[in-house]
């Protein structure tokens, strides 16, 4: 019997029975209080080791894709699939997977796939001694929590020093802040990147952060920008440039074309819309390659992908199509807006802006979002959340056209938005992180679908 694991399992059961959510964090917190050494002890039973996925945007989707691939390869996964990405979430996932005796069944086939909060990475590396670490991107996000963006890059570099030389890094070559981590790597590095294509933008978006050379601080020049500051970058002053990716992606045809490190050309279906979906898919393929999974497993894993929690989920509510997309920082929301621009107007939108601890208490970031992209394409917008007025004010100054309604209460806002959407019509719902939890719960109830913690990925 393992007291800490039993307490976590019990707490999780009670929380779900009481309808208090998925029990993805608090049980882990309790178990860690009882046994601070819980994570390394349980993780020792991961016969296939652990993969960590970190970065500002795309963690949940990438980890989900990789989990699917690993399962297709016959592995049993342990994952914090609902996005609870601090140590407590990892602990909760391990407790959930363990038996009452505190052991993981079928240990030799067990692989941990954990998404990790940017600032939690050093702790996660120390606790889990990962086999592979995937770095996705670094954007401005929750500056009230992380301090400056540069601070996160420093924390990441420091955490690499604690990695064993056997650990592989999977790095996004197109993000200068991520690519430069290769200099601190002690083990093998696999770069992934996207080839230029018709989707390219002429210059970095307003919200771009890594405009400066990681080596000499000169201003970077771009041959092509995929989004934000991701692209084919080069420093005119010191000559540092985007590393040549061993795994290269091509957009433009159907799906995502891939050139694998051995030179093979393959095509994968894109699991979601948007350039960022291509990046998440490449990152998952890169991690799968580092793990030595067969191609067939990667292909089947992507094909079987049902969407991650709140990442472009589609539901049918009272005869209306409702699409829910998490939007929590400028780089991510700009990508979502560009995707919306490709849909036939007029758009019906329900936006939710919360300022909870997990969202960031500072809501200034909405002014870095290019809402002006939607100008003339909007039939109406409902602004909601604990900072609904701030959001409405931003939308007012963006001169979107269309009607603007302010309803801070989330349930009333959803009711209003669904009521105004004609049957058969589509409603786009864009919440921040804590708003997503509430919105998803309400919509799932109205749609009669399962709550997120029963998605079966744990």
């Amino acid at each position, binding site marked *: 019997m393992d007291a800490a694991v039993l307490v976590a399992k019990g707490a999780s059961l009670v929380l779900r029975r009481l309808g208090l959510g998925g029990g993805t964090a608090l049980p882990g917190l309790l178990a860690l209080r009882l046994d601070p050494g819980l994570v390394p002890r349980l993780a020792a039973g991961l016969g296939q080791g652990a993969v960590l996925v970190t970065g500002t945007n795309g963690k949940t989707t990438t980890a989900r894709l990789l989990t699917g691939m690993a399962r297709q390869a016959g592995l049993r996964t342990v994952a914090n699939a609902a996005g609870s990405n*601090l140590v407590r979430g990892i602990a909760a996932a391990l407790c959930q997977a363990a038996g009452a005796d505190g052991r993981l069944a079928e240990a030799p086939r067990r692989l941990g796939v954990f998404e990790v909060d940017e600032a939690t990475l050093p702790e996660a590396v120390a606790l889990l001694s990962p086999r592979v670490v995937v770095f996705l991107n670094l954007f401005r996000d929750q500056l009230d929590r992380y301090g400056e963006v*540069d*601070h996160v890059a420093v924390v990441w570099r420091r955490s690499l020093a604690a990695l064993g030389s056997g650990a592989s890094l999977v790095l996004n070559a197109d993000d200068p802040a991520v690519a430069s981590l290769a200099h601190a790597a002690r083990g093998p590095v696999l770069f992934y990147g996207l080839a230029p294509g018709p989707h390219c933008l002429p210059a970095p978006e307003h919200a771009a952060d890594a405009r400066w050379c990681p080596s000499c601080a000169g201003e970077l020049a771009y041959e092509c920008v995929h989004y934000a500051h991701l692209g084919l970058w080069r420093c005119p002053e010191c000559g540092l440039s985007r590393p040549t990716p061993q795994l290269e992606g091509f957009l433009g045809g159907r799906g995502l074309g891939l050139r694998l490190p051995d030179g093979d050309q393959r095509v994968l279906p894109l699991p979601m819309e948007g350039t960022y979906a291509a990046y998440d898919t490449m990152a998952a393929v890169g991690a799968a390659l580092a793990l030595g999974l067969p191609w067939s497993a990667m292909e089947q894993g992507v094909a079987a992908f049902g969407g991650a929690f709140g990442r472009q989920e589609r539901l049918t509510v009272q005869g209306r199509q409702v699409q829910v997309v998490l939007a929590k920082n400028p780089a991510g929301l700009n990508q979502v807006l560009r995707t919306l621009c490709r849909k036939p107007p007029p758009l019906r939108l329900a936006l939710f802006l919360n300022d909870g601890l997990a969202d960031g208490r500072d809501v200034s*970031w909405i002014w870095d979002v290019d809402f002006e992209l939607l100008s003339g394409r909007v039939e109406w917008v409902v602004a909601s959340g604990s900072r609904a007025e*701030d959001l409405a004010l931003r939308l007012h100054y963006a001169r979107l056209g269309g009607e603007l309604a302010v309803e801070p209460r989330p349930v009333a806002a959803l009711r209003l938005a669904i009521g105004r959407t004609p049957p058969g019509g589509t409603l786009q719902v864009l919440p921040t992180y804590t708003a997503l939890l509430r919105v998803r719960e309400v919509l799932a109830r109205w749609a009669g679908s399962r709550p997120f913690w029963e998605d079966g990925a744990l």
Partner: protein
Amino acid sequence: MRLRLSWLYPRHMNIYGDRGNIIVLRERCAARGIELEVEELGPGDPLDPVRYDIYFLGGAQDREQRLVACDLVAQKGPALREAVEDGAVVLAVCGGYQLLGRFYRTAEGEELPGLGLFDAWTVHPGPGVRRFIGNVAVSWERGTLVGFENHGGRTYLGPGARPLGRVLAGYGNNGEDGGEGAVYRNAFGTYLHGPLLPKNPHLADHLISLAIARRYGEVPLPPLDDALAWSAHRRALRLARRRPILMRWARALGGALPWPRNR
């Protein structure tokens, strides 16, 4: 009518929503039939002291602040000082505010020269010391101002500068003397972002009025429908005043909090 705004170092100093101030000035001018022309000036670009009515400087990380400090003091400094003495309007937020003081001593003890437009100086007490982060409310001579502050540096004013306002909730310049921001002639420095102007339309209009008066003489600005702005203002004011309770609650949670403690 036409006004010209110079946005100084927009690529280096644009942290977290600062461009909201520009959007608001431009839109509020446009609503009164005034064209606001915005020109971006980076390091190395010459500054013509008679060309602009309004200057804007945003916030920055320490790294970018270092990159522009020399250019501001050595190259654009004399022209900007001349413009301010002539009554030009300046709005400088956070890092930009710090650069207009006499110096900024970074967390590592390095001293960055400032323009000395404000009789003020800023000291970062070190990487281990708590940043001032949170909603903030200030009593200003024309009403309350609301915003969000996030700064490690502590700013102190000498006798030649006066604070923009008194802190009602939050930290302000240094968390000690109750002052927030600095004013010299028509130059305004402040730690309030959020961004500052959208939720404080009275300050936005005050800046526009000062700029118009200097170029065209006194012209009253027709009022705009600011119901949305004021409801966001009131919400932020409530949040700022609620913070002491929140902080107590956060401290009670103790070690369970996710953020790194050493910044």
